């Protein structure tokens, strides 16, 4: 049994985002202001703004796997294979029953169910035309299960449903399982296929929370006065996590150490965020990491560009960080890639990890007129900012039904 306080490190990253299919490409675009939002035809609704990933599915899957499986499964397999390659692990020698796959998801099964209903609508709603693949495609563990099939992983492989807090949750859960000794190596993070379900778009539109803009790359605009809602995106980001001693034994490259986390619930509303609980979540994560607010050098916000949600997160951050954290920069990755739902937390963390090396904070773009209610000290707007030190990153990810997650990573060796 490893000690309950075993140190956990990130040793590999694999991702697909609307503006990049590798960490290097993603980071380059975050530093050069390249957003990844486009118009996409959505069933029953016509063209909508969306973040679409353009990875090569056949790089790691057979055509039949793509046909039979789901988009979330495909994204997950791509990210898992890329993360594994990046980790440098001798995969063939790794006991596959000691590997865990833990994937955060916002939802799963909407896409496949909508597709089947549309399919049988062409046959007068006769259910004998309903696909026999419906159940394996829609079970909640689908993307993790498809990844286990592709990789031959026989350890635990399942998803963690946590709305848009899920990306962080994949990492948190993996760290917990590594500390418990349940597994020796984890593939974890979050995935989303949500742009392929009209229901998500229609739901946000009915909620008056779906972004509109004439120029797609400018549509996702957290903190801007003219923000008018969420841009829905797909994506995925998986990490390889290991206990530090295992990683050091094999001479692995170490991206970061998991320093602390916290997960809590608002218990106050179906959709409205609760800044008091968010602040509690941030404070509890800091406490676990044994850090003070002033020790955090980069805060990556969850802000989705809804008029109220952004203000409330800023209120939570202001409550914790106040004016006494001169070395704390604050940014937002959704301004480039929209809201990648279950992948959001994992992708947004990845986009900031390189700051440990390049000492640059990527900006929040599309802020033409900063909302005074979002004017936090340390906000990095429109242009990247060179900073003297990045030893710690705090990553917020919040979701509907009031689930909050905060994850803190630190540069290894600090």
């Amino acid at each position, binding site marked *: 049994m490893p000690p309950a306080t075993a140190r956990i490190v990130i040793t590999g990253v694999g991702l697909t985002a609307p503006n990049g299919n590798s960490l290097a490409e993603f980071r380059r675009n975050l530093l050069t202001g390249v957003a990844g939002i486009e118009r996409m035809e959505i069933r029953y609704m016509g063209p909508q703004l969306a973040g679409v990933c353009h990875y090569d599915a056949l790089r790691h899957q*057979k055509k*039949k796997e793509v*046909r039979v499986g789901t988009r979330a499964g495909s994204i997950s397999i791509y990210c898992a294979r890329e993360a594994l390659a990046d980790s440098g692990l001798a995969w063939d020698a790794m006991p596959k029953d000691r590997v865990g796959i833990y994937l955060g998801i916002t939802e799963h099964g909407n896409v496949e169910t909508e597709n089947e209903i549309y399919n049988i609508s062409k*046959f007068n709603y006769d259910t*004998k035309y309903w696909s*026999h*693949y419906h159940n394996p495609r829609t079970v909640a563990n689908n993307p993790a299960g498809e990844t286990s099939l592709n990789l031959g992983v026989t350890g635990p492989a399942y998803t963690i449903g946590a709305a848009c807090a899920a990306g962080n949750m994949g990492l948190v859960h993996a760290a917990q399982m590594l500390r418990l000794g349940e597994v020796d190596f984890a593939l974890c993070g979050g995935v989303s296929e949500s742009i392929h379900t009209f229901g998500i778009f229609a739901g946000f539109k009915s909620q008056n929370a779906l972004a509109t803009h004439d120029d797609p790359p400018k549509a996702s605009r957290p903190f801007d006065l003219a923000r008018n809602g969420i841009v829905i995106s797909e994506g995925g980001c998986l990490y390889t996590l290991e206990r530090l001693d295992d990683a050091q034994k094999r001479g692995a490259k170490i991206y970061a150490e998991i320093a602390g986390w916290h997960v809590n619930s608002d218990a106050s509303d179906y959709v409205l965020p609760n800044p008091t609980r968010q602040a509690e979540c941030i404070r509890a994560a800091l406490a676990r990491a044994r850090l003070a607010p002033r020790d955090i050098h980069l805060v990556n916000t969850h802000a989705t560009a809804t008029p109220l949600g952004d203000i409330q997160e800023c209120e939570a951050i202001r409550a914790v960080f106040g004016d006494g954290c001169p070395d704390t920069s604050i940014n937002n990755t959704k301004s480039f890639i929209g809201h990648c739902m279950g992948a959001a937390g994992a992708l947004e963390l990845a986009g900031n990890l390189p700051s440990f090396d390049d000492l640059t904070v990527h900006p929040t773009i599309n802020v033409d007129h900063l909302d005074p209610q979002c004017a936090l000290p340390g906000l990095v707007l429109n242009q990247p900012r060179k900073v003297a030190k990045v030893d710690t990153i705090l990553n917020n990810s919040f979701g509907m039904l009031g689930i909050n997650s905060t994850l803190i990573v630190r540069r290894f060796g600090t």
Partner: protein
Amino acid sequence: MTKDECKQIVLDIIADIAPDEDLSHVKPGVRLRDQLQLDSMDFLDIVMELRKRHGIEVPEADYQQLASLDSSAEYLTPKFIALGK
């Protein structure tokens, strides 16, 4: 509808459901599962596509008739003819 046309219909379906397979050397008299990577879900796909594309029903008791291209043609050709195809 000839038996050769019927075999081509089945092959066209298999090409869609098993897109990684090379179908140029499929032996008509040999069980499809012995020469291609097809599982039970794939055979359900063949049944579904016959239903969707051609209005042909294959009851579960008759699934074994789809074992090879030859047996498929023997079984399916009269069904196509009965539908006026």
